[in-house]
């Protein structure tokens, strides 16, 4: 796991899921498992831009692209542009 992925996991745990004792991993399904709903993805995308220093064109992102922390960073690498 990269430092950036850990940073995102910490953010999701503390600010999005906020469920004491809930552990998430880099491949934990988030949207498809119902852990987060797709409306939370607005905040997660903003955080992803901040962590990766990339501007992510939201029109090119689907919910499934954001289903795990690993896929989020893969999406950023695929469609993001350096800020």
């Amino acid at each position, binding site marked *: 796991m990269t430092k950036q992925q850990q940073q995102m996991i910490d953010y999701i745990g503390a600010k999005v*899921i906020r469920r004491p004792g809930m552990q998430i991993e880099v491949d934990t399904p988030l949207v498809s498992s119902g852990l987060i709903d797709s409306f939370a993805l607005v905040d997660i995308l903003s955080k992803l831009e901040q962590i990766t220093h990339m501007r992510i064109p939201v029109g090119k992102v689907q919910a499934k692209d954001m289903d795990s922390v690993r896929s989020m960073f893969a999406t950023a690498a695929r469609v993001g542009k350096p800020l």
Partner: protein
Amino acid sequence: MNTIATASQQLAFRTLTEALLAAPAEHAFVTMWNNEDNVHTTTFREFTRWAYLQAAYFREQGLQPNETVILIMPQGVALMTAFVGAILLGAVPAILAYPTFKVEPSKYRFGLSGVSANLKAKLLVVDASFPQDLLEYIRVGDLCKLVCAVASPDPAAEVGFAPRAYDPRQLAFIQHSAGTTGLQKGVALSHAAVLRQLGHLTAALEITTGDRIYSWLPLYHDMGLIACFMLPMVSHLHVVMQSPTDWVMRPASMLRLISEHRCTIAWVPNFTLQFLARRVDVEDRKEFDLRSLRALINCSEPVRAASMDEFKAAFSACGLRPEALQSSYAMAENVFAVTQSATNRSGMPRRVWVESQAYYRDHVAVPVAENSSGSLCLVSSGECIPGNEVRVVSEDGCDLPHGRVGEILIRSDSMLEGYYNRPDLTSEALRDGWYWSGDLGFCLHEDLYVTGRKKDLIIVGGKNIYPQDIEEIVSSHPAIQDGRALACGVFDPELGTESIVVVAEVKDENQLQDPLPVEQAICNAIVAELGVAARGVYLKPPRWIVKSTAGKAARSTTREKLLAEHPELSSG
């Protein structure tokens, strides 16, 4: 000097095609903002040529006049030209929501499947990036062909197409009603109805050629399609546009675009005002100049005084004129607007303070002095625009006097032809020339006040309670996530009436370990403000409430979820 594009100008056009072809070719039509580095302006000439290419392509694909075509494409000029291309061909386009990261996949699939089955389209037009796994949920039948739209106009391509002449009474397009639950209804509109509505709207807003529209509104919704696409197309105005998801990601971009392009008119649902006031940093506000804005029209949700005041307080320093904040009552079935507050007055829409007990108990608005104890403030949605009439009636269809709350009925010359392929729904909604809106409200002087949806009303011991009023009280508690509260009625067989049940999301899940103090405080606040007690307040973790594709709380689905988790509520 700006000339007023009068109502008669719109009425003189027989079809939308005629209106487009009369546009000044070199004038800017659409500026599409994708991000700071990707902003593109399309002139009327470029737009029309692209629309011709789309029409020629659709014809090659076998699309015939009067056949329906479904468009599922991202917000942008490719979608807009595909829409107009279908109209040029005499076909009947319907825009459906494009899937985004914000949309719940299962809910999207459900809606898509039902709506597409009803349209019986001959052509389904998507873009190259449309998710393949969703295509199987579009029920279009064996006779429907799937194609990709012309993504960008080839400058070398010959335009081998000439628009056909057609009857103004012919269907122009189908727009879908903004239902938050179940299946949306396809509202079929003729060219004549659309042009009449635009003529009336132009007159009511005193549109001039100097006006410039800003929009983040989706084109599958009447506010986005009619006010921010058809109106500028027919009135030959410039519209500055971005997608809803781009706006939600970067809310301040709306204010930046209005400032940079000197936009004069925009429509927004009520929540936008509060959202911007809370999300845009105080530091960032210094760069905005909102002096150009003459009408920021609050529409499509109940208009709330507190939201308008919060926005005014947040952005007055940016040059926002208080009188720019206006209101309107609109619906897809009437093409768009029924009422509009007066944009030429010196102030915001009229407000009335009414005695709250009489309002909730007797369904009557009794005006009292401003801010007097036990009163509540309601905001007018304005007066009827030309060509529109409203009546307010009781359950048995009798006209109610001014101040009495009842169902709003509408009669106009821009009414829908019918719900597409649903004569049963059409005859239920359209009776003796009047459209039964399902909305509740009252008239006072010349103004219409819209108070809520009839089906959402909670009746507690004969007292009428609007869920939105309870939700506003609950959301104001500091432990509750802003805008994430929902109130509904549950029949109590012991009492023989409905009881109020509230579900609300806490900001921090740790608060659920000791929920009683918050629940009690919320119960007390409801009793203090509305004079009724809630049977239960249920605190839930963040994101528990089900939201629709439009971002509103899905009332019936959330209610079912609550009853499933708390079966004791159903058993009384």
